[in-house]
């Protein structure tokens, strides 16, 4: 009799403690998951730049188009017959640089990093050139930029990092 009762007590103790620990243990991953929203109301990652002819005037050399910077944080740059999309996000700690067309320099207001018009860093704490984004011709024949795919300077010659005009 006496033994039986003790066994039941131990069983209930394990059950109680076990379910308590399980609840507490589970609540941690659940809370973390809760804080990762399923749906984001952020800007879509792709946008249309235009028809290839729009960006192909007869001039040569390097040209920075600022038209998409305000809305999408992207500079479209034409260098010879190459077209690429520079991510307007400083490679130091992520502020948005400004382009000074007369000097041909991108300057970051946060800690003074500077980049040439092709994105090459030459002053300040930025550790690498400005990153580039995937640029391609979509099914409708439009130049499209995908801001979710990033290329760092080692991959600038990879397919997708630039378009041949």
């Amino acid at each position, binding site marked *: 009799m006496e033994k039986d009762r003790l066994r039941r007590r131990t069983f209930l103790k394990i059950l109680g403690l076990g379910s308590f620990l399980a609840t507490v243990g589970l609540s941690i991953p659940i809370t*973390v998951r809760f*804080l*990762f*929203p399923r749906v984001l109301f*952020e800007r879509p990652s792709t946008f249309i730049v235009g028809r290839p002819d729009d960006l192909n005037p007869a001039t040569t050399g390097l040209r920075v188009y600022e038209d998409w910077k305000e809305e999408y944080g992207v500079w479209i740059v034409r260098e010879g017959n190459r077209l690429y999309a520079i991510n307007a996000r400083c490679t130091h*700690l992520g*502020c948005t640089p400004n382009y000074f067309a007369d000097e041909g320099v991108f300057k970051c207001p*946060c800690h003074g990093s500077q980049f040439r018009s092709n994105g090459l860093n030459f002053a300040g704490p930025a550790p690498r050139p400005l990153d580039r984004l995937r640029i391609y011709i979509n099914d409708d024949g439009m130049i499209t930029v995908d801001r979710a795919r990033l290329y760092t300077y080692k991959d600038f010659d990879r397919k997708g990092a630039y378009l041949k005009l």
Partner: protein
Amino acid sequence: MENKSALWRWIKGSRVYKSIFRHGYEDTKKNRILQIRSNVFLHIHPVKIPDHAYRIRFTWCMGGITFFLFLVEVMTGAFLMFYYTPTPEQAYRDMLYLRYDVPFGMILRNMHRWAAHLMIFTIILHMLRVFLTGSYKPPREFNWVIGVTLLVITLLLSFTGYLLPWDQLSYWAITVATNMIGAMPFIGHEGPLSLLDRYHDIRFLILGGSEIGSNALLRFYVMHIIVLPVTGMIFMAVHFWRVRKDGISRPL
């Protein structure tokens, strides 16, 4: 007692008064103990304080001043909440509104801001005094640990509060700071040895998105007005309780 008015005597003799205050004013040992022990706030305090604990040149009263500034933050913060809305559309507009139109809004914001700055300053002086007087040594080593937690909570309060005005300074400061967080090893997507992308790392967890937007503002707000202050108050209570239980240190 005799020269008190009849009204005063009636109040003090009434059932209502006696139900709230169970002790008198007499300066007797028993009554002093009663005064402290029958008060939920004061009972964290020791009944008797040794003389040396009053020596301003020993404590600098820096812990006390820090606590006072925290109370200033709670008060002014609660008043700010009457006019502040944590959304990208309204936050900065409310700042301007507080600044130019709300009666006493400007001084309210400035009190909140300067007390926050001062609080960091006095916390550091408090730590310095505890260090210089060797008060962190046993048996008080655990209270030093609690103190470090309180310092971190205060710094996080400043950090989360900084985004709330939603102006250029706050936006870019939080951009830089959260990008630093995103560069942490393993848990940040730009950090070394990390397998995460920018939608699954620690920075995303903090911002509630891959960029600083309404989710980030709301998260910082909730941390700033509920989570951190309440956690801070709990740790402060333990901090003060430990000062009492360990006994305040004495000068040599």
